[in-house]
């Protein structure tokens, strides 16, 4: 009895040590397989939510999240089945159900984050449809699946949305106007009709880079960002650092 206890304790201790070592390693490296995918998704969601412009679609992250979600869902339904068939034999206890509940809750929480992420993107695509259609039709875009600005589904949505919208405008009022006034992407006359994302707007950022770094603002002004500092700056100056991961939008 006492020996098993001691064994248990030693084992636990070893395991705990392994845990702490692992944790140290993962905090050392910014990108490793140990990075919590949940936190990554939250970060991507917040960045997307607060950025005035569409950020590149997180192909890798979203694919990973989707795969893991469907795996977990499969596991959940298998376990439910297992629970149902063994309910009478007494193998399954309340503990098991509680565990399934925690797993289910996590699935729901992740799906919610994912929905928020996609909704933020769709609202921007809705608002600046013409701008993004011309952005994504450049030849260098779309050739690489993993780095494109929008996902395949979003691309399809964007074009469909634009088609329906033009149809509606045409049917309801544009057909009654003189022909030269019917272009939705008219840029003549000194006023562009394509609404562009307000990249000049200010955003809240938090620096997460360990080393302080300096960004240049207009009129030869510089700003030093230190770790955990919170700043309000124009989006266009901070955009490259958001993509690098040195700052997060909040």
């Amino acid at each position, binding site marked *: 009895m006492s020996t098993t206890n001691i064994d248990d304790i030693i084992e636990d201790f070893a395991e705990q040590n392994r845990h702490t070592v692992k944790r140290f390693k993962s905090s050392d490296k910014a990108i490793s397989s140990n990075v919590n995918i949940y936190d990554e998704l939250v970060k991507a969601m917040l960045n997307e939510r607060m950025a005035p412009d569409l950020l590149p679609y997180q192909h890798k992250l979203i694919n990973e999240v989707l795969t893991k979600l469907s795996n977990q869902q499969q596991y959940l339904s298998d376990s439910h089945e297992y629970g149902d068939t063994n309910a009478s034999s007494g193998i399954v206890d309340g*503990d098991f159900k*509680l565990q399934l509940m*925690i797993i289910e809750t996590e699935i729901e929480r992740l799906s*919610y984050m994912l929905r928020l992420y996609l909704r933020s993107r769709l609202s921007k695509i809705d608002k600046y449809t013409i701008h993004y259609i011309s952005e994504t039709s450049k030849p260098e875009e779309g050739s690489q699946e993993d780095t494109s600005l929008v996902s395949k589904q979003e691309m399809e949505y964007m074009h469909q949305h634009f088609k329906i919208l033009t149809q509606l405008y045409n049917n309801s009022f544009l057909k009654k106007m003189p022909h030269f006034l019917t272009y939705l992407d008219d840029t003549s*006359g000194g006023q562009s009709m394509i609404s562009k994302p307000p990249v000049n707007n200010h955003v809240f950022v938090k620096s997460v880079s360990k080393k302080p770094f300096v960004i240049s603002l207009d009129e030869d002004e510089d700003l030093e960002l230190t770790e955990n500092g919170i700043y309000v700056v*124009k989006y266009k100056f901070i955009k490259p650092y958001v993509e690098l991961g040195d700052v997060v939008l909040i």
Partner: protein
Amino acid sequence: MALPESLTYNLSPPEISFLSENEYITILPRYSMKKIELIGEKIPTLRGMRRERVPLWVALILKSQDKCNIVPPSWLELDFLKMKYEEEMKLPHKFSALPWHWLEISKILLAKAPDDLADPSNKLKSIIQDLREIRLVKSRKGLKELNESNIQLDGLSFMEINELRPYILKVMDKLMNLHDSISRNNVEAETNENEYEDGEASEDE
């Protein structure tokens, strides 16, 4: 609309509260439970009376089933908060360091686990309210400093930033527009007349 206008550049308080539930907290399990492999992280094997760190949302599920006690974070304590309050009084131009999610987490814990807190919840509530108010006053005074370029807001927490955000962003964007139009006016003052003529010409076409 994919996202309501009111939510485009801002988060709602429930959303922030949701995000704060991802923070880790220490629990003292009352029962043992096998480890769970979640997508985000692993929940270690829980054993009675051995402390473990788990995400707050897991702790809340266990707590609601009476499976664990939550160990309140070290800052959620009367003495510590009083010290912070005095610090706020002493330094009128600086925010004292509080956790990123202090408002949300204290609210959640006060509502869901009042029996686990070391101090009576009414006293905690009142000191939290005091702290919150003094910080609000400070941040409102700080609004005088808004300019068109950039500001630094160290020490504010997520919820407090979210409260200030709509106002600060709007004012700064407007100031920027004014600033731009002034500088543009100076440059274009001379060429203005030519442009008017051009504009009329194109309308005639």
